[in-house]
Every structure is written in structure tokens, then in C-alpha cells.
């Protein structure tokens, strides 16, 4: 028997055990139902302990549906990717109170898009890196996961349909006296945590350059994940966490009654100093999905369901007026 024949045989043996541990990351049955008229009823902002669920009835739109690739139509499901493993970021994308279903404004928007397209949503959680690979390999039809449009990602083979802007904010410990006064000068001598590879990191680096020109310091710290960042903030190793505003508001609320409460210390436009950063639904380039997804998003915007989802999560400030296909992205790092 050739060697290559033996390896799959061994793998087959493994697969048997695999079913024991098959990890349920599918959609919770309660989030989407079908009413008597065949419309999908999507319950958004369900499965959390900080929002009030809202039921939205969504009729499928045949004109948009007609633009879907045949393979997706035949399959009847829309595989929606999320990148919240191991860490989610509430209220955007995280595991809900049932401790297993991917929840948040991102996956809810994905469910609504599926409803407009007349497809059954299949929400899958993945690690951040894996989400991109699986989107590119076509395993995920579309990923909703607070993904910023960048020129670099366009080059890597992705299409984008934008649906949200991100506003940034500053988080400090509750007993801190620091507040953002609208000017980068207030960071002098501070240690600031920021997530790597983000829009806000670029802004922070610019501020540091300016401060250094004035002979002042600004120390930037990157942590492996959000949990580590929050621990560093609580222990006083960093003074400020510069992050998306919704996450900060949410975390401040979550820590209210814990030994280490935090608070928001001001916000800042995600436009930064150069260009408005946009969050977008991400598909494999030229898969034929980006246009119908953008159309569905625009349909939701026009019908007001979009505003209701954002309101349910307290994110109305991040609303856009139109979904665009492949809008200008953050330029490739030139620093």
C-alpha cells in the first residue's frame, strides 16, 4: 500500500473521534424565525445582558436576490463569518449570554442581510486570522466583524461593502483624573494602550511624533489581546486605552460593580487626521456577492431597520447614510 494511502486511513480514524468534539458554532435557532407570509423575523440585540431585544420583520427582495451567484441561491444559506475567537469585542461581535452563540451588532446585521436576500443565515465564529483565510477560500460568503476597509486588504483579494464608521474613545480607570481635552497635548507623559494594526494606532503614532518634536513623551503599548489590555489598565501599567468608542462605553458599564471600574474619558472621530475609516462586510474578491450584500445593506438603511439595530446596541453615532462597494480604504502604511 503506498504511503499516501495510509495517511488518509489514519485520518479517517481520527474523524470518528472528531464528531465527539464537534464544536457548535452555528446560529441560535431563536435569532431568526419565519412568519406566516414567508418573511424572516430577526430578533436583534437578543442574547445579551445590556440591550433590549427588538424584533424586525424583513421581506426578501427578489430584485437583489436575482444578483446572487447561482451556487449561493441553490445552497439557500448565507455563511456569515465572524472573527471573535478567542476574544470577542462587545457590543460589536462576541459570544452572547447563552455562552455559545456569536452575538452583537455585526452578526445581527449579517442576519438581516441574509433575510433581505432570502437566505438562511449560518453564522460561524473563527479566529481573526482564520476568518480572512476562510473568507478568501470562499468558505465564508461574507464576514461581518468590525473589519476596516484598507487598500492593503483590497490588494489581498477582498471586496468590501461598507456599513459603519468607527468612532474612537479613551478609557481610563474610574479614579483617574485624566480627560481628553480635544488636543493631543493632553497625552504628554502618558502611557497609552492601543490594538496593533488599527486606525487608532496610526493616529496615536502621529501624536507621538508631534509630542516628541515638542520634547515631550508618549509611550505606546500593544498587548496580545483585549483581556490583557484591560488587566494592564486595571493594574495601572497603562494610563489610557485608545479604542473604538462602543467597546469603551460597554466595558465601562460592565466593570461598574467590580473591584476595578473604568470610565470613558472622551471620544475622537475615527476620521483621524487623514481619512474616514469605514467598517465593511467583506467577501472574496469577484465572488459576485459584494454587490447584492451592498444592495441589501442599502435596503435595510432605507427601510429603517439598519437604524434600529444600531440604536439597540447604542451605536447610532456610527451610522452611515449609504453602503458603498469598495470605498477608498486606509492607505497602505507609509510610516
Amino acid at each position, binding site marked *: 500500500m503506498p504511503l499516501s494511502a495510509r495517511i*488518509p486511513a489514519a485520518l479517517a480514524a481520527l474523524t470518528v*473521534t472528531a464528531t465527539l*468534539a464537534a464544536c457548535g458554532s452555528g446560529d441560535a435557532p431563536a435569532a431568526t424565525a419565519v412568519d406566516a407570509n414567508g418573511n424572516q423575523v430577526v430578533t436583534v440585540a437578543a442574547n445579551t445582558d445590556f440591550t433590549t431585544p427588538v424584533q424586525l420583520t424583513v421581506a426578501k427582495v427578489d430584485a437583489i436576490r436575482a444578483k446572487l451567484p447561482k451556487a449561493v441561491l441553490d445552497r439557500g444559506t448565507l455563511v456569515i463569518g465572524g472573527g471573535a475567537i478567542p476574544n470577542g469585542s462587545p457590543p460589536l461581535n462576541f459570544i452572547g449570554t447563552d455562552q455559545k452563540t456569536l452575538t452583537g451588532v455585526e452578526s445581527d446585521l449579517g442576519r438581516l442581510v441574509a433575510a433581505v436576500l432570502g437566505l438562511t443565515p449560518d453564522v460561524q465564529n473563527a479566529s481573526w486570522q482564520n476568518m480572512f483565510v476562510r473568507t478568501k477560500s470562499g468558505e465564508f460568503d461574507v464576514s461581518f466583524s468590525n473589519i476596516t476597509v484598507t487598500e492593503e486588504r483590497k490588494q489581498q483579494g477582498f471586496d468590501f461593502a461598507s456599513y459603519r464608521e468607527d468612532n474612537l474613545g479613551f478609557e481610563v480607570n474610574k479614579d483617574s483624573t485624566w480627560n481628553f481635552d480635544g488636543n493631543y497635548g493632553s497625552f504628554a507623559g502618558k502611557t497609552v494602550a492601543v490594538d496593533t494594526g488599527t486606525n487608532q494606532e496610526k493616529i496615536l503614532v502621529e501624536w507621538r511624533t508631534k509630542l516628541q518634536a515638542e520634547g515631550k513623551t508618549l509611550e505606546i503599548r500593544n498587548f496580545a489581546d483585549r483581556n490583557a489590555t484591560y488587566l494592564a489598565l486595571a493594574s495601572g501599567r497603562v494610563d489610557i486605552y485608545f479604542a473604538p468608542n462602543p467597546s469603551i462605553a460597554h466595558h465601562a458599564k460592565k466593570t461598574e460593580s467590580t473591584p476595578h471600574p473604568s470610565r470613558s474619558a472622551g471620544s475622537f472621530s475615527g476620521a483621524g487626521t487623514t481619512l474616514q475609516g469605514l467598517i465593511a462586510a467583506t467577501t472574496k474578491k469577484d465572488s459576485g456577492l459584494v454587490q447584492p450584500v451592498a444592495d441589501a445593506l442599502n435596503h435595510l438603511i432605507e427601510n429603517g431597520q439598519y437604524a434600529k439595530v444600531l440604536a439597540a446596541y447604542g451605536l447610532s453615532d456610527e451610522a452611515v447614510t449609504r453602503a458603498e462597494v469598495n470605498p477608498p480604504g486606509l492607505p497602505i502604511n507609509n510610516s
Partner: protein
Amino acid sequence: MTSLSPPPTRPAEDLLGRLKSTKVVPLRHPWRWVAGAVALVLLAQAAHALITNDAFQWDAFGYWFFRPVVMDGLLLTLELTGLGAVFGLIGGVALALMRLSRNPVLRAVSWGYVWVFRSIPLIVLLLFLANVTALYSTLSLGIPFGPSFVEFRANDLLSFFVVAVLGLSLHEAAYAAEIVRAGIISVDQGQLEAASALGLPKTRQYRRIILPQATRAIIPNYANQLINLLKGTSVVYITSLLELFGVVQTQASTNSGQIIPLLMVGTVWYVILTSLLSVAQYYLERHFSRGALRTVPATPAQRFRARMRSLGVAR
């Protein structure tokens, strides 16, 4: 004459005569008692600090410790560790034997394997395997480089669980190979000579003579490796599987007010699993020490019973 000058040795001899049947009092070690007491006080202090610091939020700890989602993660950790250890060891033994063989091709292949898989970070290996579908969409069964009989869609065959086990096993085998090889070469060369002088068949020489002796040297190192693996499974999150640490991380990111108690939940479970492994290691070592020590050490249970007997508590 005797009255004039008694021999000077006389009193000393008396003393020796009296002492020869006297018991020896061992040297007292008061500082040992002091050091012991200090250690106990420090330990008590640490325990007190751990229990009373409200940062640990022991009520939240209690809530999460037996949560089904944590249990699922724990089960996955155990499955990944168990399968990774078994397949890794099988692969490691094969690689070690290849490395020790007289066939230069096998030696080189084994060396190359160990070199490659010790160099590739586990997380990269797992990411690569998880997304092998992007590189090879079908795997086939057939003659090497020739026609294939059956084809599989890579996605169907390589579930994430399989990917994780495969990645951990490939990685583990490289380390196990070196541990097994070290065990085998620690066995005296004369053992093989004696076995072959008796005309024992080659496989018997290894199975009956070399491996049992090598195992003694292998166990402590492999136990170390196993404990590494147990905690190393946490990188499988990259394949989108959530084992114990992944679950703890995910839930902490949703419940960001409970990061510390959730990390403690993970830690305590790892402590429990490591302890169980250590106990298993102790008894395995004891089993394989047969013949290596003049007397096999007593088990803790046996020592406890002996102590009780000597105190007259039990018989």
C-alpha cells in the same frame, strides 16, 4: 607499683566501657524547625492574600468553574492532549528508530523532520493546516505520483478537530522523537550486544530489552512534554476551536468585568490536570524502576500506613 602511678589510660577505658552500650543522640537542627515555621507562615500569608483579595471575585469563580461551556472546553483540552500525546509518541518512536537506524536515508529524513517541526511555531503549523483547503482543495488516495482511486474534499476530511489533532501530533512527534532517542541511547550498548549474542530477533531486542529500559529515562521527560502539550493546546484557537483556555478567554471578553476570576478558573483546572498527570507519572516511574533500584520505593499510601502503624494508630 600500681599505687605509685596508675596507668593514665585507665579512666578513659572506664568511660569507653560505659559508653559502648549507650544510645547515640542525633544532632539537633533547631534552624530546620525555624525555616519550616517561616515557610508555613509565608504560605499561610499567600493563601490569605489569595482568598481575601476581592480582585479574584471568588463568587464569579464559583459561577464559572463548572459551567457547561467551561466543561466543553475542558473536554476538548483532554481530547486534544490525549490524542496528541498518543499519536505524537507513536510518531516519536518511529522517528527515533529511523534516526538510530543504519539507513542513511531514514536517518536524514528523521533528522529533517525534527528540524522542520521543531522550527515551525505550532500556531503557524495549525493555521497552515486549518487552511490547507485554500492550498489543496482535494486529497487523494492512490499510487504516489500516479493515478488516484478516491478523492476527498479536503474540507470534509479535515475537520478543525482533525486539523488540531494532526497539528499537535506532528509537532509533538518531533519533540517526542528526541526524548525517545535520548532514552534509547541512555541504555548501555552492551544490552544490545548481549541480546544479539543470545540470538534474539531484532524486534524482540527492541521490544523486550531496549524499550523497557529506555522508558525509565523517557517517562520524566515525556511527562514534562505532556504537561507542555496540555497547556500548549490553547493555541488551537487559531483553528477556531475553543478548548479550556479559549473558552475562558472568550467568556472573559464578553464578561470583561470578570477577566481575573475566569483566568483563575482556567488556571485551577490546569493545576488539577497537571496534578493528575504528576500522580500518574509517579506510579509509572515506580513501575519501570523495576530492577533499576535495589528496592522499589514505597507508594505514599504505603508510607502513610507504615507511619500510622509505627504510631500505633492502625495495624
